[in-house]
C-alpha cells in the first residue's frame, strides 16, 4: 500500500504542470502542425494532407537563387535584427550584471538595482510602444533637444518608424532577459577566484576574459536563447516601431492570420519554429547548460 503510494506520488505532483503544458503548448503545436498541411481558398479552409503551403512559403525561392526571394529576404532581415539585438543585449546584460555582482558591495543595493532593471515590464507592451512616440517622434523630446542644442537644424526622422527604432525597442525589452541569467551565473562565482586571479598577476580585463566570461557561459547561453527566441518571433515591435514598413518572419505570419489564411500561417510558423530550434541547437552545442541547472 505504502509502496504503491510512493510510486505514484511523483506523477501526481508533476501532473498539473504536465496538463497545462499539454493543453496550452503541445496541443496547439500539434494543431498548428496539422493545419499547416490543409488547403485553403479565399473563402474556405479544407482539411487535407498536402505540402502546398510549404511550397508557397518558399515560392520560387530556390529556383531564383542567388537572387533572394521575399521569404529569404524577410528571414535575412529578421536574422539581422536578431543578431544585432543579441549583440547589444549581450554587451549590456554582461556589463550590467558584472556591475551588480562585482562592483556593488551591499546586497540590498544589489537587489534594488536588479529590480530597477525590470522597469520596462511595469507597463503593457502597447503603452510602452506608444510612449516612444513623444520621445522619438519628429517633434519628440530627443529631436527638440538636438535642435535646441544646435546639433541638427531640422528634425532627425530616422529615430522613429525605422530599423533603429525597432532595434532600440527590442533591446529595451530584452536586455533584462540577458541580465538575469548572467547575474545568476556570476553570483555563483566564488570571490576568492577573482582574488586568486589578481594574486597571479591578472589585470582586470584578463580576469574578465579568463575567469568571469568562461564561468558566466551558462548564463550567457540561457540569456541568448531567451533573446533569440523572442526576437525571432516578434511582430509587435517590428510592426509598431517600424511603422509597418519592415518585414519580419513573425509579421508575415500575423498578416496571414489577419487575412484568415490559417494553413499558410501555420506552415510559416512551423518553418520559423524549425529555424529557431536550429539556432538554439547550435547554441547548446557551444555551451553545456545542464552543468549549472
Amino acid at each position, binding site marked *: 500500500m505504502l509502496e504503491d503510494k510512493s510510486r505514484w506520488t511523483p506523477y501526481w505532483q508533476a501532473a498539473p504542470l504536465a496538463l497545462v503544458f499539454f493543453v496550452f503548448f503541445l496541443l496547439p503545436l500539434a494543431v498548428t502542425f496539422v493545419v499547416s498541411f490543409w488547403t485553403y481558398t479565399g473563402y474556405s479552409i479544407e482539411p487535407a494532407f498536402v505540402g502546398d503551403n510549404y511550397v508557397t512559403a518558399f515560392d520560387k525561392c530556390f529556383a531564383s537563387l542567388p537572387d533572394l526571394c521575399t521569404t529569404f529576404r524577410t528571414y535575412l532581415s529578421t536574422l539581422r535584427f536578431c543578431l544585432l539585438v543579441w549583440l547589444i543585449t549581450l554587451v549590456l546584460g554582461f556589463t550590467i550584471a558584472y556591475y551588480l555582482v562585482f562592483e556593488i558591495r551591499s546586497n540590498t543595493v544589489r537587489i534594488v538595482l536588479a529590480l530597477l532593471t525590470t522597469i520596462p515590464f511595469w507597463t503593457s507592451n502597447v503603452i510602452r510602444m506608444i510612449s516612444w512616440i513623444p520621445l522619438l517622434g519628429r517633434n519628440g523630446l530627443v529631436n527638440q533637444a538636438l535642435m535646441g542644442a544646435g546639433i541638427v537644424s531640422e528634425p532627425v526622422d530616422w529615430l522613429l518608424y525605422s530599423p533603429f527604432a525597432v532595434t532600440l525597442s527590442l533591446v529595451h525589452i530584452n536586455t533584462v532577459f540577458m541580465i538575469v541569467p548572467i547575474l545568476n551565473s556570476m553570483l555563483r562565482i566564488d570571490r576568492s577566484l577573482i*582574488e586568486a*586571479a589578481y*594574486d*597571479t*598577476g*591578472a589585470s582586470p580585463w584578463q580576469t574578465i576574459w579568463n575567469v568571469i566570461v568562461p564561468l558566466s557561459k551558462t548564463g550567457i547561453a540561457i540569456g541568448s536563447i531567451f533573446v533569440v527566441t523572442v526576437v525571432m518571433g516578434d511582430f509587435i515591435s517590428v510592426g509598431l516601431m517600424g511603422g509597418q514598413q519592415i518585414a519580419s518572419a513573425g509579421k508575415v505570419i500575423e498578416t496571414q492570420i489577419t487575412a484568415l489564411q490559417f494553413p499558410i500561417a501555420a506552415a510559416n510558423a512551423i518553418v520559423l519554429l524549425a529555424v529557431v530550434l536550429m539556432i538554439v541547437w547550435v547554441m547548446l552545442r557551444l555551451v553545456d547548460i545542464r552543468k549549472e541547472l
Partner: protein
Amino acid sequence: MARAADLELASVTKRYGDTTAVDSIDLKIKAGTYCCLLGPSGCGKSSTLRMIAGHESVSDGDIVLGPEVVNGLPPAKRGTAMMFQSYALFPHLSVRNNVAFSLKMKGVSKVDRSIKATDALKLVDMERYAERLPSQLSGGQQQRVALARALVTDPQILLLDEPLSALDPFLKIKVRAELKRFQRELGISFIHVTHSQEEAMALADLIIIMNAGKIEQQGAPREIFNAPATEFVARFIGGHNIIPETGGRKVSVRADRVKVSTDGETGTGAVVREVEYQGTVVYLSLATDAGLEMTAIVPERTFYERPIETGESVRVHWDASDVHELAA
C-alpha cells in the same frame, strides 16, 4: 628556484572605518622561516596576511620585503604568492592550466607554460592529474595543485590562509607534514594563518600569537609553551592552569606538571570532577577547595598505578620551579 627574502612589518595598521583590525604591529620574519600567525577569529591575523599579500591596503606603516617597501605594489609584483583557504582553483580550467594561469597572464608562450607547469606539478607529485578538472580531485590533491599554482610564480614568501581547515582530521596531519617538507626543501618563508594552536606548534619555527589586533607574544613554539607571556597566551595555547596569586598577579603551571596524590598532606585539597582517558595520558578535571578549576595531565602508567575515580578527594601540588609568572 626561489630567492628567499626577509620580511619586516613596521607599525602596520589596518582600519576599517572606526574599527582597528590590526593595531600598529611590528614584526620581523627572517628568510626561510615557517611562521604561523595564530589567534582566535577576529584577532587580525587574516587582515595581516592579506596586507602582506597585497589584497588589503595598509592604513598605516610599512611592509618591507627584501630591500623594498611593497605597500603600493600589486600581489604579483611583490614576490609573494597566496594559497587561499578554499584553494580558489579555477573550476573551468584543467589542473595544468590552473598552474599555468599566472604564466599565461604574463604572456609566456604555450610551450614554456606547459613545461613550467609540469615542473611545478612534479614538485607536488601531481603531474599525473594534469588534465583533470579541480572538481575531479580530492581535497588533499586540490591543496597540492593550489600549492603548485602559488609556487610556479617563484615567490619569495608563500602566504597560506588557513590551508588545512577544509581537510578532514587525518588528512590534516598528513598535509601538515607535507607543507613543512615543502617549506624546508624550497628554503623560502611560509606565513601560515591558523586558529589551531596544535597546527602552529607542529609546524612553526616562529609563532606569532595575536589578539585584538595586537601581537601578544612571538617566539619559537617551545619558548611560548614554556613561558607564555600573558594569561591570554596561556589560555589560548592550552595545557596550562592559571592560578591567581595574592595581590592580583597570576601565575601559570603546565597541566602536565601538576601532581595529584590520594594520600599525603602537601598541596591543596581538590575534588576530581572528570576523568578523561586519552591513550598515552589521562586528563583529570579538578575543583580545588578554593573553588579553582584545574586540569592535570597524568601519564597513563602513573595513573593506573593508583586509579582515581570521579568524585574522589585528592591533593594537588606542584614544584616551585614549575610556576611561571604571567604579565598582567
